[in-house]
């Protein structure tokens, strides 16, 4: 958590928020779930408060959402040969089609 160690007030606020919001372990579960369902308002507020004080969970959320974005824009062009049919496979397909 990003706090100045000698700032007594900040430390206390952060400490309080850390106590009343879900722990990080639970946050990862909730962040995942929020991608598939609408969570109850209370849960969402607690999550938001946790995110005020925890850069790690913010990162986690951003990165997990990024993976989804990446998979949704997933490139159509098969750029590497691994993404293409081999000549053998093509030959087999042609054969199967000619019999059909």
């Amino acid at each position: 958590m990003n706090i100045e160690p000698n700032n007594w007030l900040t430390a206390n606020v952060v400490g309080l928020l850390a106590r009343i919001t879900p722990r990080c372990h639970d946050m990862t579960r909730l962040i995942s779930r929020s991608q598939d369902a609408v969570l109850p308002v209370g849960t969402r507020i607690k999550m938001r408060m946790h995110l005020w004080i925890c850069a790690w969970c913010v990162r986690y959320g951003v990165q997990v959402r990024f993976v989804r974005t990446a998979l949704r824009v997933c490139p159509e062009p098969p750029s590497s040969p691994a993404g293409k049919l081999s000549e053998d496979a093509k030959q087999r397909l042609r054969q199967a089609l000619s019999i059909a």
Partner: protein
Amino acid sequence: MSEKPTKSATEGEAAHAAPEHWVDEHGDCLFHYALTRVRRTEVAEDLVQDTLLAAVRAQTNFSGRSSERSWLVGILKNKISDHFRKLGRETTFTDLDFYSDEHSDKFENEFWNHSTGPRVWKPEGEEALNRTEFWEHLQRCLGKLPERVASVFLMREMDDVSAKEVCATLKITDANLWVMLHRARMALRLCLENNYFTDGPPSA
């Protein structure tokens, strides 16, 4: 698909009558589509074959209203769903390993351990998307997921199939779905972080 033959619009109209051109014209595209979802070359090839054979049989149903390719992709989608449905009936042992908590060292007293928790990613999002290595690593990381977990995850993330539908297709419970998705996201994020986004050694 650099050598893809280009056809004039009028020729394209007539092309749907010629299944022998399908392999060359749409083969790579269909294969790529299948491979990104099922991840195994043999399975993807089989699915493409099933698709083309089904297409030959159903050829008379092809109205020509949609493009030939999207018609074939439509058939392929159904074949992939069938494949996942069959998969839903099998349980593999790798799934069990996957659920054992490999992330326990990331947390201390259920808070992130600040030295092993999520790091700042470089290059940043948009930039990574433009890099070939990113996509290669993404595929490699997807390849590490247990088959069933990957199918659930990809149906949800890639094709935006609703949670309800995924459960119905694979005959799994809601609770099971949440766990699988959560685990898949966690594992994939970590795999990318360790292998692509930072040059440093993987965090212990």
